[in-house]
C-alpha cells in the first residue's frame, strides 16, 4: 500500500502525465485506422488497375485469354507485398508509440518517487522541530521546577540552621569555602576607608544566606566591613535587619557595637 506521501505526490503530478498518456494512447487506434485505410486503398487500386490494363490491351488488339488472370495475379502479388510493407511499418510505429508510453510511465514513476521522498522529508522535519520544541519546553519547565525546589531546600536549611542557632545560642556559617570566598570578595571591595559600600554588604549577605549561613553570623563576622557612622544604611530597619544585627552583636557579647548601631539608627530618625 502506498504511503500518504506517495498518494499525495501522485495527486500532484498524476494529472500532467495522465493527459500525456491519454494523448499517446489515442495515437494507437489512429495509427491502426490509418494503415487500414492505406491497405484498403491499395487493394482498391489493384482491382481498378487490373481492369485498366485488360481494357487497354484489348483496345490495342491484344487478346490473350489469360491476360486478365496474369495481370490480376501480378497485381495481387504487388498488393500482398505492399500490404506486408504497410503491416511492418504499422507494427514499427505502434512499437514506437508503446515505447514512448513506457518512457512516460517511467518518468512519472520516478517523479512521483522523488516528490514523495521530498514531501516525507519536509513532514519529518516539521515533526522533528515540534518534538524539539516540546522537549525544550519540558526541559525549561523542569529547570524552573528544580530551581524552585532548590530554593525550598535552601530556605528549609536556613530555617533549620536558625532554629539550631537559637536553641544553642550560637550563629551558624555556610561552608568554609563560601565563607572564605565572601571574605575575599569583601576585602577586594573595601574602599579607602577600609569599609565596603552598603550595597555590596547586603549583596554578599544575600549570598551568605542563600548558602545556608545565618545572617546574624554574617553581621558579627564582617563588622569590620561596616562604616558604623552610617549604620542605618547597612542595616535596613524596615526589613528587620537592624533588629537582627543588634541582636547578633548582643548575643556575641559585643554590646558596644550594638549600642553604636542603635545610636546611628536613632540619629537617622529610624
Amino acid at each position: 500500500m502506498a504511503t500518504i506521501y506517495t498518494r499525495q505526490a501522485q495527486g500532484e503530478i498524476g494529472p500532467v502525465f495522465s493527459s500525456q498518456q491519454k494523448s499517446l494512447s489515442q495515437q494507437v487506434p489512429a495509427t491502426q485506422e490509418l494503415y487500414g485505410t492505406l491497405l484498403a486503398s491499395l487493394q482498391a487500386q489493384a482491382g481498378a488497375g487490373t481492369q485498366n490494363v485488360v481494357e487497354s490491351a484489348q483496345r490495342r488488339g491484344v487478346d490473350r485469354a489469360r491476360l486478365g488472370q496474369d495481370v490480376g495475379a501480378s497485381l495481387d502479388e504487388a498488393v500482398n507485398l505492399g500490404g506486408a510493407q504497410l503491416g511492418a511499418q504499422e507494427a514499427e510505429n505502434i512499437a514506437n508509440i508503446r515505447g514512448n508510453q513506457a518512457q512516460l510511465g517511467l518518468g512519472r514513476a520516478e517523479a512521483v518517487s522523488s516528490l514523495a521522498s521530498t514531501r516525507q522529508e519536509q513532514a519529518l522535519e516539521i515533526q522533528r522541530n515540534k518534538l524539539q520544541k516540546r522537549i525544550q519546553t519540558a526541559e525549561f519547565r523542569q529547570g524552573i521546577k528544580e530551581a524552585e525546589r532548590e530554593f525550598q531546600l535552601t530556605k528549609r536549611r536556613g530555617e533549620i540552621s536558625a532554629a539550631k542557632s537559637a536553641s544553642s545560642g550560637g550563629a551558624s556559617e555556610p561552608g568554609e569555602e563560601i565563607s572564605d570566598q565572601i571574605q575575599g570578595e569583601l576585602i577586594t571591595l573595601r574602599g579607602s576607608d577600609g569599609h565596603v559600600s552598603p550595597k555590596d554588604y547586603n549583596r554578599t549577605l544575600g549570598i551568605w544566606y542563600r548558602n545556608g549561613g545565618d545572617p546574624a553570623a554574617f553581621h558579627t563576622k564582617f563588622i569590620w566591613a561596616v562604616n558604623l557612622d552610617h549604620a542605618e544604611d547597612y542595616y535596613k530597619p524596615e526589613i528587620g535587619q537592624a533588629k537582627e544585627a543588634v541582636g547578633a552583636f548582643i548575643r556575641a557579647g559585643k554590646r558596644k557595637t550594638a549600642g553604636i548601631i542603635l545610636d546611628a539608627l536613632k540619629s537617622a530618625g529610624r
Partner: protein
Amino acid sequence: MPTKFVTQAKNQLGQGFQQQTQALQSQIPAINQLYAALGQQLDTQRLTGTQNILEGASGRGLLRSTIPVDAQTGLEQSIIQQRGELAGKQAGEISGVQQRIGEVGTQRASAIANLVNALRAQQLGRQQFKFEKQQSLRELELNKRLSNRQFQLDRRLVELGY
C-alpha cells in the same frame, strides 16, 4: 515471493513496459510476413524470367536443346543471391527487435530496483524518526523521575541536618 516494495514499485511503473514488449514482439510476425512476400516476388521473377528466356529463344527459332542454359543458370544464381541477402536482412531485423526487447526488459528491471531502493529509504527514514522520538521522550521522562527522586533524597537530607 516479491516484497511489498517490489509489488508497489511494479504498480507505480504501470503496464508501459509490458505493452512496449508486446508491441515489439508483434513486429516479428509482421517482419516475417514482409520477407515472405519479398521472397514470393523473387520466385515470381524467377518464373517470369525463365519463361521469357524460353519464349525469346523459341521466337528466334532456336531448338529446345540449344536454349541458352547459361542465361537460365545466371538467372537462378542471381535469384539465389538475392534470396540470401533477403534472409540476412530478415535475420538482422528480427535480431534488432529481439535486442530491443532485451533492452526494454533490462530497463524495466533497473527501474523497479531504483524504485524499491527509494521506497526502502523512505521507510527507513520514517522508522528512524519514530525511534528518535521514542528515545527523546523516554530520556525526558527518565530525567524527570531522577530529578523527583533526587529532590526527595535532598529533602530528607535537609531534614536530617545535612
